């Protein structure tokens, strides 16, 4: 069976093309219907990443039906939310305390990298369940900085 290709979440059938050549690693020259396209792929995982063509950048995902895939994604559900460091950097300020009630969009932690300070916000309303970082801590990308429990009513 052929893998299913999703572009920005939608299943898309590949264009029928005359020729396709990988001109550099991850860079494809595609001639289709008389038009010349240069397409660039940046994989972030084996089965997903970004694909760029004519200034447009799409997310792609390949679903191989031979592999079992989990359908849901915990991050999008109603469970706990983790505030993750988006890049390596230094924690400058903690803006909340454990037990605080927070609205969606409330700033939780300020992380500094490349001379820029960035406020990481709560993705949902809830209560601060844990804080795993202190001010002036150096953190790696993906480090869990805080946990937000969902608000009781939703």
């Amino acid at each position, binding site marked *: 069976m052929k893998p299913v290709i999703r572009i920005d979440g939608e299943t898309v059938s590949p264009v029928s093309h005359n020729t396709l*050549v990988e001109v550099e690693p991850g860079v*494809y020259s595609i001639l289709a219907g008389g038009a010349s396209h240069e397409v*660039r792929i940046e994989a972030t995982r084996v089965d997903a990443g970004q694909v760029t*063509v004519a200034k447009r950048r*799409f997310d792609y995902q390949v679903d191989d039906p031979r592999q079992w895939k989990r359908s849901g994604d915990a991050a999008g559900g109603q469970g706990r939310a983790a505030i993750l460091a988006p*890049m390596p950097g230094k924690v400058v300020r903690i803006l909340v305390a454990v037990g605080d009630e927070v609205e969606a969009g409330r700033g939780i932690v300020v992380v500094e*990298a*490349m001379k*820029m300070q960035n406020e990481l916000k709560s993705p949902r309303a809830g209560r601060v369940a844990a804080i795993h970082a202190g001010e002036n801590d150096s953190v790696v990308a993906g480090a869990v900085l805080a946990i937000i429990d969902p608000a009781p009513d939703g």
Partner: protein
Amino acid sequence: MFEKVLIANRGEIALRVVRTLREMGIRSVAVYSDADRAALHVRKADEAAYLGPAPSRESYLNIPRILDAARLHKVDAIHPGYGFLSENAEFARACADAGFVFIGPPASAIAAMGSKTAARRIARDGGAPVVPGTEEGLGASPEGRDAASEFAQSVGFPVMLKAVAGGGGKGMRRVDRPADLAAHFDAASSEALRAFGDGRVYVEKLVENARHIEIQILGDRHGNMVHLGERECSVQRRHQKVIEESPSPLMASMPALRQRMGEAAVLAARAAGYYNAGTVEFLADNDGNFYFLEMNTRLQVEHPVTELVTGLDLVRLQLEIADGARLPFTQDQIALRGAAIECRIYAEDPANNFMPSPGRITQLAEPSGPGVRLDSGIYSGWNVPLDYDPMLAKLIVWAGTREHAIERMQRALGEYHIGGIRTNIPLFDAILRDPAFRAGDLYTGYLDELLKQPGLLGLPPAPELAAVAAAAVAAYVKPAAAHAEQPASSPLLTGGRWLRGGRGDLLR
């Protein structure tokens, strides 16, 4: 002329200086920190000296280590670039004391212009118009807050709070209402203290809807001084310039304004005893009124736009002036031709609140062709360190008219691809197609307003392009099928793809 010059800087500006040195037959010495051993400026210089660990204060801001490197490599002179120690009077003095020529202005002029309140006095006494503001810097004390409040009430809100030792937008706050003044005053003061070690703040009347226009000046050590026209730098975010251009669109409707601003800039610089390259920044309104803001006592990031419209090499002129030469031209001989635009390419994600995006550059396609200049500090495989400013490169174009320059910039941005990290390239696409930008209708709040437009960075849906993208994805994930269509010469590419897949697995 010098035989060997050390560049006390990193990244694209260090490489830009190396290039002129090579053209002049002068040997170049790069310096580097632990984070920059493999940086492009180190690769391209004739010699390189290790400074220390990644944090700037232990490397690029460490005066004793830089002077040790200069002694070790037996250089004649030191170019400071921009940022880091370029506007540090103590460094300029230390270079001279150690027997090295500092390629820049005299330490006394750096010190005079380094205090923003002193600079305002010098400019005003020299005859340049200044924005109404407090004479002195104010500390974060009850008296300081009271004085700030009294001044703000007398000129009316809104006002700007600025750090006396300021630069780079640090310690700057706009205040719209009396009730907000105290809190903003304390915040600006503590930010200034952290950034510059000096928490004093002064208050200026805010000139609303003003343009940021600056004048490039150049003087020799024999008393000659000229201006090289203006740069419009009104497209800013968080008080940091994003796009610069020359000429300013305002000059088309005000032909006499350039000369008036140029003369005011030369007056201010002369009053400070200035020589070498420098920039006088002004706020200007659409009626042709302008006010001195501050003077930058160094080569600026955006100097290439002036180079393209004047045909001059400012770094070469800096070296010649530092070596004692006279200016090779008079004001009358300076002609501005065509239009130049610069985009500052940053490692940040405009779709995600401009989050910094350090990391490894996995793919790089750079623009070229007619009228395109790229001053870049990156290469494919380089790991952008998180320790320094996120500027990766400057893309500059020249064309006969502003309209053509905008079209050329759009074309060049379309050729530019930096893979592996996020950059602000999509933001430039959005600005360059904005009707207000194209009309030259600019002011310093322009970009903040534009960024409020929903869907600003989005392009119209293109299902046919999604199908083309899907074809490439299909080839990427099915090595055997793609291989069958490829020319016979590419087994290595196929191998590369398997390697990439394996690496992706490990990193997952």
